[in-house]
């Protein structure tokens, strides 16, 4: 049985790693996105160019960073620069991928990491806010969201659009003045891989992880999903990818030990 060979976090990281094309650029944060980029570099994308938003460029990461600005993010890097320099590299159109997460996500891929509640001045729960997420989602070509799949998170309407997905639907990003041609690309959860429908810009399930069925996904999603036809099964991680992930990328099982 598949579950014996890898856990959900391992599958998510491996699936994310496979999406990153070689010779392209990505801005990552800490945790699973960083692990995915490190894994990609060691497998299918040796020439993946990794940025951290606080200014670290192309480090040879000795361990996973704890902060997006700590010294690991430019350890033996090719440049240690400013946050503006990295963000402006994105704004110029040189950043292909960004990884993001959030407390809530809706069918258009809009993300909330600011607050729960309806009164901005008196939030029920205050979250950190955008950080660099809004900037990256505005300026990078393709956003990949890595998140757990549950009904509290996948909601019909986010309490606060911190970070733009497709906003209210087709054409809305461009109408708002955001650079054209960008937007959410994939959402990878512990159940499935989703993309966005070309014409409606709504979330669409592309593949179910091995052993997951359609009903499970629907039950844990707070809005109607579109479904690719036929639905693929997410490729399970190769033995080699798992070995590299476990031995080189996350040897202390900080991430992959959580499941």
């Amino acid at each position, binding site marked *: 049985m598949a579950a014996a060979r890898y856990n959900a976090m391992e599958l998510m990281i491996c699936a994310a790693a496979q999406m990153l094309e070689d010779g392209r650029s990505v801005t990552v944060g800490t945790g699973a996105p960083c692990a995915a980029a490190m894994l990609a570099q060691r497998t299918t994308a040796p020439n993946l160019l990794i940025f951290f938003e606080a200014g670290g460029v192309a480090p040879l990461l000795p361990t996973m960073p704890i*902060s997006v600005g*700590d*010294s690991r993010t430019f350890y033996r890097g090719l440049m240690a620069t400013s946050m*503006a320099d990295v963000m402006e590299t994105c704004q110029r159109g040189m950043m292909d991928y960004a990884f993001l997460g959030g407390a809530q996500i809706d069918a258009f891929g*809009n993300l909330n990491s600011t607050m729960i509640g309806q009164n901005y001045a008196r939030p029920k729960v205050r979250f*950190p806010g955008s950080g660099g*997420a*809004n900037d990256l989602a505005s300026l990078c070509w393709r956003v990949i969201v890595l998140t757990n799949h549950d009904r509290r998170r996948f909601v019909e309407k986010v309490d606060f659009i911190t970070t733009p997905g497709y906003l209210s639907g087709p054409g809305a990003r461009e109408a*708002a003045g955001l650079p054209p041609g960008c937007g959410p690309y994939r959402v990878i959860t512990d159940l499935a891989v989703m993309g966005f429908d070309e014409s409606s810009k709504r979330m669409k399930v592309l593949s179910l992880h091995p052993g997951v069925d359609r009903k499970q996904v629907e039950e844990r999603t707070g809005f109607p999903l579109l479904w690719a036809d036929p639905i693929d099964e997410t490729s399970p991680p190769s033995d080699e990818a798992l070995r590299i992930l476990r031995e080189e990328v996350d040897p202390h099982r900080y991430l992959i030990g959580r499941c």
Partner: protein
Amino acid sequence: MTFPAATGRLFSDPSANAAREFFRTKPRALRDKVMSVADAVRDLVRDGDYLAIGGFGADRIPTAAVHEIVRQRKQNLSFAGHTATHDFQILCAGNLTGRGQTLARVDVAYIVGLEARGLSPHARRVMESGTVECTEWTNYTLAVRLKAAAMGLPFLPCRSMLGTDTFRHSAAKIITCPFTGETLLALPALYPDVAIIHVHEADRFGNCRIRGTTVADLDLARAAKRVIITCERLIPNEEIRREPSLTAIPFFCVDAVCEVPFGSYPGNMPGEYFSDEEHLQLWLKMEEDEEQYRQFLHHYLFEPKDFNDYLQRCGGLERLRRLRAQELLLHQGR
């Protein structure tokens, strides 16, 4: 197509002409600016000020000066919260803990969290209490606001934040490029009253060197009306003159220079020492219970007579030696 205007309040004056009048008066002479952190905070951070902190959350932060702001009961501050993590957590110790209200207004890009370490329970209590007024921004847009001020302008354009609630709760505006018709976000310049930045090396006049990422600090030092530098090491002016290409912040932006070895502890200082994750976890844990947190603050923040005393209570030189080994990967056999 029209968009609703942003409704957030602007906590500082973006006027370039007003800033020019101030900067005209700022001294340009090389003078000895070395002083204690206590004196620097006493003289240069004023109640009601707009404050900005350098570094990135728990990386290269001026911990000693942030402690001192809470210890000296500075009140009613505005604050620039660009990935503010441990620094924000410390400032929040001046709210809802019987110290009055240190923070009154916050320009938010990232607050209450400590990145992968989790959320700060006390900072959340403060920010969910409704007693601190907020306006929303993003890490880059706050950096652009500082860049506008560093350039001596009242505003700069950028291309993010459009279309979102982050924009709606900001104080930005939407403009059209006069050349291309492209829609742009206009960001008001942010000229902080006072900035505090921790650097690797400074001379006594305030010429500073930084190793590693500079985050937004080159612009911040130029944008702020008053600048306090804390540094790992004072170095001779002669060393600055040996390699002027390495000067990241020039002395004429700086008002005070405080030598604070290990001054970013428990944060990370590139090339010097790694962050003390155990101490940061302890801090988060202690915040869970308010009474317990008051005792924690008493021991670690209010009782220490200075920053060295705080370092001693956190494990002293032996602890710092281990963090240095970790930073340099010596523990990996390198």
